[in-house]
């Protein structure tokens, strides 16, 4: 068996390489720090000469997401990437994608806000992502990578989930994972789907009504309230199915744990260091890392929470996911939050101090 090729690259570069390798048909993006390497890597790789993947630098994030919408209508694997302020601009388009039930991938390499904020890493877009930053009752399948390897692996997974459920998917990363270099094994090459495959797998796609079939019309508009309610109920039923089937998480040292840290992405990596220091000092603590932020691993947290003395959420924001953790355990366990703001990454030692106070 051939050995897997290990390369060293940034998280943003891994996104670009993974996109080319997983049969992505089109990327539409606009530069913004700290994610610009995605578009730069694609431009440098020239996939239009190899796989035939289209790469367009748009005039704005508003345009990017609407290019993604147009491309998604054709049943192709299309994506964009941006960082927090740019993703804010995309919210209308994301709502349209969800409303029209279109599969697409949006990558957010998030940075500190609000406003223009900072270019340093942050997890402050949790609410925007999982509570619906755009208008209307919709959900975004959200994957939170904690390593460069997961940046690469989640591109194909996000597309698979997006197409399985005809719903946009988000990779919610941050400036640390986007910018840091790590070892990565890139996914194997997978060919782009042929037009015939798309026509059969996506019978809804607007690719021209070949063979005299009925026209396909993609819209999120329905002026009759009774009809619109039926559409909404159908979409909600799909969301319940996703919540049932697609929850993903990682458990770390929870078997004997008396305390639980819940953290995702970069904060989960820091948490592992926290756990090693805390355990040396006799605090039995474990980690639950949600990989899908929506659907959220509420049931798992409730189950673990029932045998914990306390839960700490570590977030690089002002305390957003903590609300969902409290809901999950229905306040039967004390849940505390710790985090840093403004683009500052929490130090493991300061988190250990918080744990020590919890234990007292």
């Amino acid at each position: 068996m051939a050995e897997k090729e290990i390369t060293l690259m940034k998280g943003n570069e891994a996104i670009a390489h993974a996109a080319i390798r997983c049969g992505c048909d089109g990327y539409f993006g606009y530069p913004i720090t700290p994610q610009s390497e995605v578009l730069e890597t694609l431009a440098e790789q020239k996939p239009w000469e190899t796989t035939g993947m289209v790469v367009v630098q748009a005039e704005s994030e508003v345009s990017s997401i609407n290019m993604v919408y147009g491309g998604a209508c054709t049943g192709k694997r299309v994506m964009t990437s941006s960082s927090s302020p740019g993703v804010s601009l995309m919210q209308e388009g994301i709502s349209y994608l969800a409303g029209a039930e279109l599969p697409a991938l949006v990558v957010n390499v998030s940075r500190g806000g609000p406003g223009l904020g900072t270019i340093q890493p942050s997890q402050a877009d949790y609410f925007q992502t999982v509570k619906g930053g755009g208008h209307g009752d919709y959900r975004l399948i959200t994957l939170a990578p904690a390593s460069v390897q997961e940046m690469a692996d989640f591109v194909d997974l996000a597309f698979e989930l997006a197409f399985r459920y005809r719903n946009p998917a988000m990779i919610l990363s941050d400036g640390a994972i986007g910018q840091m270099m790590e070892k990565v094994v890139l996914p194997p090459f997978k060919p782009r789907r042929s037009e015939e495959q798309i026509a059969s797998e996506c019978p809804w796609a607007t690719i021209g009504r070949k063979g005299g079939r009925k026209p396909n019309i993609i819209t999120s508009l329905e002026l009759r309230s009774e009809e619109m309610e039926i559409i909404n109920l159908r979409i909600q039923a799909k969301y319940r199915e996703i919540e049932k089937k697609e929850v993903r998480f990682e458990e770390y040292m929870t078997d004997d744990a008396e305390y639980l840290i819940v953290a995702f992405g970069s904060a989960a990596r820091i948490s592992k260091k926290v756990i090693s220091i805390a355990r040396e000092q006799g605090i039995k603590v474990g980690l639950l890392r949600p990989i899908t932020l929506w659907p959220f691993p509420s049931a798992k947290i409730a189950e673990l929470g029932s045998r914990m003395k306390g839960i700490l959420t570590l977030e690089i924001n002002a305390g957003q996911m903590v609300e969902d953790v409290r809901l999950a355990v229905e306040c039967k366990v004390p849940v505390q939050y710790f985090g840093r703001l403004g683009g500052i990454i929490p130090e493991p030692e300061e988190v250990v101090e918080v744990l020590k106070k919890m234990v007292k």
Partner: protein
Amino acid sequence: MTREEIIREENLVYKKPELLNDVPMHYCPGCSHGVVHKLISEVIAEMGMQEKSIGISPVGCAVFAYKYIDIDWEEAAHGRAPALATAVKRLLPDRLVFTYQGDGDLACIGTGETIHALNRGENITIIFINNAIYGMTGGQMAPTTLLGMKTVTCPYGRDPKLHGYPLKITEIAATLEGTCYVTRQSVQNVGAILKAKRAIRKAFEYSMQGKGSNLVEIVSTCNTNWKMTPEKANQWMEENMFPFYQLGDLKDNGNK
């Protein structure tokens, strides 16, 4: 004679284009949209592109264009149709891709998408219905509303001190390197309709030949919000719109 005998092929002098769906239109009687829909339907059929056409409808009166022309359609967010069209045409280069947009959609909220799609030279056609008003939302001032013209948001007439000037986006488009064919047409009488049809055909053909982006503006009426009869609206358009929005080709690089 029976009805069947009367409608025999050799007796027909005019019929509804096959691609125009046999459904009631929501457009007001006298509106220009129906005529332009008919022309697009005819041109697509004459080019044999029924199975290869993708239309992008706007937000505005023409939001339901997808109900009327029997091809695949995508309904865009307000102003973003050229962004959708860009992606569709890049992903499916052998398809006929066009947007159908009003003045509020194209020349106001979607100015950025319009200018940049045109300037990238995307091989698409933008059909631009300019009736100088927001029709669907009830007759508000548009970027193309003429000076002095009354709307519900400039009830005393458009005043440049308060509202700025009407935007000639088609003239701007003609200056862009990426555009191949930029023209301004109208559909108020048979002669104008035939010219407009030729312009749409030319734009569609250039887009299929990969010659760049194409913009066909149709100066139109909105008799409902202009509060005129259809006939009076056409007359008002000729007297007031045409001097400012002059008809004809602004650019034709198709044979260069």
